C-alpha cells in the first residue's frame, strides 16, 4: 500500500495541488492560485522524472506506473503551466479567473490517469474528469459562441462516453474482470471483443480528436478563449492516446486486427484534417483541423506498440514535440489575432515572433532539425517496423499537404503588408510561453537522446 502510494505520488501531488488551487480561488486569490499550480505541477514533474525507469503497477494492477504514465506527467505538468500562463495573459481580471487554473489542473489529472490506465474503469474515469473540466473551461467567456462550443463538446462527450461504456461492459462481461489485462485471452469471442474495441476507439478518439469523432473541435476551439483551445488541443489528446497504447498492449491481434482498424482511422484523420484545413481563414480553425491531422500521425506510434522497438519512444518524443510546437503556435496566435489577415506583414513588424511562428509551423510539418521532425521520424519508423509501410506513405503525402496548410500562415507574414488597424500587444505571459517553447522546439529536436529510453 505504501509503495503503491509512493508510485502514484506524481498524480497525488497533482490532485492535491488542484484542490489547493480551488481553495485559493474560493478566497478570490487568482494570483496565488496560479502560483500554487506552477509549484505543484513542477513538483509532480520532478517526482515523475525521479521515478523514470520504474515499470510496475499500483493497487492490484489497476494503475500502471511505466514510461507512458510517467512521461504523461512530465509532458503535461509543464504544459499545463504554460497554458495557465497563457490563460493569465488572456483572461486576467475576468470573473472567476482562478477557476480556469483549477479546472486545468483537474483536466490534466484526468489525462494523467488515462495515460496509466490498467483498468477499464480508470479509462472511463479519466475521460470523464477531462471532459467535464474541459467543457467548463470552454464555456468560460459565457457568450454565444463559447456556449455553443462547450455544448457541442459536452454532447459529443456524453454520447461518445455512453457508447464506450456500453461496449466496455461486453469486455468486462467476457473477461470477468475490468482489468485491461483480462482481455488478453485468445479464447474470448472475437466479435464481442471487436465490438468493445470499436466503442473504446469512439470514446478515446473523441478526446484524442480522431476522425470521425472530431466534429466538436473547430467550433469549440473557435468559441473558447485561445488559451483554452490550446489546452484542449494538447492535454486530452496525449492522455487519450497513451490510454489507447495501454489497451492495445494487452489486446491480442488474433482477436481483433486492431492495428488495421487504427491504421484506417489514422489515414482518414490525417487526410481529412489536412485537406479541410486548406480552406480555413481563421487561424484557430486552421489549427483545430491541424490537430485532427496531427492525431492521425500520432496513432502510428500506437500501431507500433508490441510490434516495434520504436513505439514507446515515438509516443513520448512526438508527445513532447507536439506539446511544444502546438502551444507555441497558439501562443503567437493569442498575441497576433485569430484571423489570417492579422498575420499580414508580421515579418516586418515583429520579425522574431514571425520567425518563431515559422519554426512552430515547420516543426508541425516535420522539418528537421526541429522537435516535430524527431517525433515524426520515430513514428514513421514504428509504422514501417510494424509492417505498415503503406500508412507511412500516406503519412508523408499528408505531410506534404500540411506544408501547403501551414504556408497559408507563413506567406502573409513575410510577403504581405500590415493592414491599417490596431495592433495587439503581447502580454508578458504570452511572450514567456512562445520564447520558451521556441527554444525548446529547437533544443528537443537536436537533443532527442534525452527522451529515449
Amino acid at each position, binding site marked *: 500500500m505504501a509503495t503503491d502510494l509512493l508510485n502514484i505520488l506524481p498524480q497525488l501531488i497533482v490532485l492535491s495541488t488542484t484542490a489547493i488551487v480551488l481553495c485559493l480561488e474560493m478566497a478570490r486569490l487568482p494570483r496565488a492560485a496560479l502560483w500554487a499550480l506552477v509549484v505543484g505541477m513542477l513538483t509532480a514533474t520532478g517526482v515523475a522524472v525521479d521515478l523514470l525507469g520504474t515499470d510496475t503497477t499500483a493497487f492490484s494492477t489497476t494503475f500502471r506506473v511505466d514510461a507512458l504514465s510517467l512521461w504523461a506527467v512530465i509532458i503535461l505538468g509543464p504544459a499545463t503551466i504554460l497554458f495557465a500562463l497563457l490563460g493569465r495573459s488572456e483572461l486576467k481580471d475576468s470573473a472567476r479567473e482562478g477557476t480556469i487554473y483549477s479546472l486545468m489542473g483537474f483536466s490534466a489529472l484526468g489525462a494523467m490517469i488515462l495515460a496509466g490506465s490498467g483498468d477499464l474503469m480508470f479509462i472511463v474515469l479519466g475521460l470523464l474528469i477531462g471532459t467535464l473540466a474541459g467543457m467548463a473551461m470552454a464555456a468560460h467567456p459565457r457568450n454565444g459562441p463559447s456556449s455553443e462550443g462547450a455544448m457541442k463538446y459536452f454532447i459529443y462527450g456524453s454520447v461518445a462516453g455512453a457508447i464506450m461504456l456500453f461496449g466496455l461492459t461486453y469486455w468486462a462481461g467476457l473477461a470477468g474482470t475490468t482489468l485491461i489485462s483480462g482481455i488478453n485471452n485468445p479464447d474470448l469471442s472475437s466479435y464481442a471483443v471487436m465490438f468493445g474495441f470499436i466503442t473504446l476507439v469512439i470514446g478515446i478518439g473523441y478526446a484524442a480528436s480522431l476522425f470521425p469523432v472530431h466534429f466538436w473541435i473547430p467550433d469549440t476551439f473557435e468559441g473558447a478563449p485561445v488559451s483554452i483551445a490550446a489546452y484542449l488541443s494538447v492535454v486530452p489528446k496525449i492522455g487519450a492516446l497513451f490510454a489507447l497504447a495501454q489497451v492495445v498492449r494487452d489486446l491480442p491481434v488474433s482477436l481483433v486486427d486492431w492495428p488495421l482498424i487504427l491504421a484506417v482511422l489514422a489515414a482518414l484523420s490525417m487526410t481529412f484534417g489536412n485537406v479541410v484545413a486548406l480552406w480555413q481563414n481563421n487561424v484557430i480553425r486552421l489549427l483545430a483541423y491541424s490537430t485532427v491531422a496531427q492525431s492521425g500521425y500520432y496513432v502510428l506510434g500506437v500501431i507500433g506498440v508490441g510490434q516495434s522497438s520504436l513505439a514507446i*519512444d515515438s509516443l513520448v518524443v512526438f508527445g513532447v514535440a507536439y506539446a511544444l510546437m502546438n502551444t507555441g503556435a497558439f501562443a503567437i496566435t493569442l498575441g497576433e489575432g485569430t484571423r489570417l489577415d492579422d498575420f499580414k506583414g508580421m515579418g516586418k513588424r515583429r520579425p522574431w515572433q514571425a520567425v518563431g511562428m515559422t519554426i512552430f509551423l*515547420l516543426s508541425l*510539418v516535420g*522539418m*528537421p*532539425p526541429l522537435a516535430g*521532425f524527431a517525433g515524426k*521520424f520515430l513514428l*514513421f*519508423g514504428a509504422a*514501417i*517496423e510494424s509492417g505498415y*509501410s503503406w500508412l*507511412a*506513405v500516406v503519412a*508523408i*503525402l499528408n*505531410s*506534404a499537404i500540411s*506544408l*501547403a496548410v501551414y*504556408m497559408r500562415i507563413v*506567406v502573409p507574414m*513575410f*510577403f504581405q503588408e500590415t493592414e491599417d488597424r490596431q495592433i495587439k500587444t503581447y502580454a508578458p505571459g504570452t511572450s514567456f510561453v512562445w520564447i520558451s517553447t521556441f527554444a525548446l522546439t529547437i533544443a528537443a529536436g537536436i537533443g*532527442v*537522446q534525452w527522451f*529515449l*529510453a
Partner: protein
Amino acid sequence: MDFSSLPLLSITTFLPVFGALVIMVLRPKQTKTAYGIGIAFASLTLLAAIMIWIQGIGSGLSQIEELSWIPSLGIAYRLGVDGISFPLVLLTAFLFLTSLIFSAKIKDNANIFIELVLMLETACLGVFLSLDLFLFYVFFEITLVGMYFIIAKWGHEHRKKAALTFFIYTLVGSLFLLLAFLALYLFSDPNTFDIQQLVANPTITGLAATLTFWGLFIAFAIKTPLFPFHTWLPLAHTEAPAAGSAILAGVLLKLGTYGFIRFPLQMTPDAFREFAPYVIVVAVFTALYGAFVALAQTDIKRMVAYTSVNHMGYLIFGVAIAAVTTTTSGMIALDGAVLQMISHGVVTGVLFLLVGALQDRTGTREMNEMSGLLKAYPILSGLFMLAAFASLGLPGLAHFPAEFQIFLGGFDVYPIAVGIIIIGLPITTALYLRAIQKVFLGTLAEGFSGVKDLGSRELWAIVPLILATILIGIYPDSLLSMIHATTNFFGL
C-alpha cells in the same frame, strides 16, 4: 601540408552559417558592408575546401570526423569526404561565392538575403559531407527552406507560386527519402544510420530492397529531376533571382544526382542492377524530352532551365550504366557522370548569371524581343556564346569530356540506348545556335543601346566560372584522377 589537427570538414561546413550569424548580430546598415562580410565568409569557405584538398583526398572515405549524437538510435554526427563528394564541395563553395558576388546589386532586405544564401551554403556542404543518413536528411531538408524563401522573396513575377510548388514538390521527394532511410536503418544489422557501414555491408535484400530502391529513386528523381517528376523545375528556375537559379541548377540539382550515386548505387546495388533498364529508359526519355522542350521555348531562362533536364538525363544514364556492369565501361560512365555534375554546375551556373545580367539590361527574357545585342554588349554576348557552346558539348569545354565518357561507357552495354540519347546533342546545338542568332546577331533592336556592358561586379562573378569551364574542358584530369580513384575503389 598537415592540418590534421583541425576539423576541416566541420569548419568548411559551418563557416558560412557563422558568417550569417555575424551579419545577424552586427546588422550592418550599409548593404556594401553586409555583402563584404558575406563574400569574405564565402571566400574563407572556399579556402577551407581547398585546404581539404591539400590535406589529400583518399580513394575511400577519409578525413572522418565523428561525434556522438543519438547513440540509442545509432545516429552520430559523422562527416567524411571522398573523390565523389569533394569535387561537389569545391563546386558548392565556388558557385556560392560567385553567386554572392553577382547578387551584390540586390538592395531589398540585403542582410536577410545574404544570411539565407549562407545558410543554404552550409546545408549544401553538409549534404555532400554527411556520413550519417539522419544528418544527411537534416541538411537535405534545410536546403528546401532556404531556397523557398530566396525564390519567394527575391524572385520574379510568379515567385510565390513557383516557390510553393518547389517547396511542396521537393518535400514529397525528401519524405520518400525519409522512408527509404528508415528502411535502410531497420534492415541493417546492427541497426545504424552510419553510411560507411551501410555501404560496406548492404544487408537489405528482397522486397524490402526493391521498395527501398524505388523510394530512393522517387526521392532523387524529383530532386534531379527526371521525367515525369521535373515539372517544378522550369517554374522555379525561371522565377528565382539570377543567383538563386545558378545555385538551384548548379548545386541543388546535384543533391539528387549525388544521392543516386551514394545511396541506390552503393546501398541497394542488386535492386539497382535489376531495375537499371527502367532507369535507363527514363534517363533517355528525360534527355530527349528536355532537349525538345527547350527547343520550343521563347523565354531564354526557361530554355536554359530545360537544357538542365537534358543534361541530367545524360548524367543518370551514366549512373545507371555503372549499376548494370562492373567492367571498366561502367567505371568510365560513372567517372563521366561525376564530372558531368561539376561541368553542369559551372556551365549552367554561369549561363543563369549571364541571363540575369541580360534581363537586368533588357528588362525581358523573351528572345523574340531581343536582337543584335552583340553590338550593344560585346563582352556579355561573347561570354554567353562561349558558355552556350560549352553547354551544347563543344570539345575543349567542360561538358565534352563528361558526356564523351558517359556515351563511351554506355556504348559497351546499351549501344542502342546511346544511339537514341545522342540525338539530344544536335537538338541542343540547334537550340543554342538559334538563341544566339536571335538574341545576339542581326540588327540591334531599338532601346537596348543605352546601357553599359558587364560591370566589374558581374565580371568578377562570371569570369572565374568561364575560366573553370575552359580548364575542365582542356584538362579534365585535374578532377578526373580524383574521381577515378574513388569509382575504382567502389569496385562495382
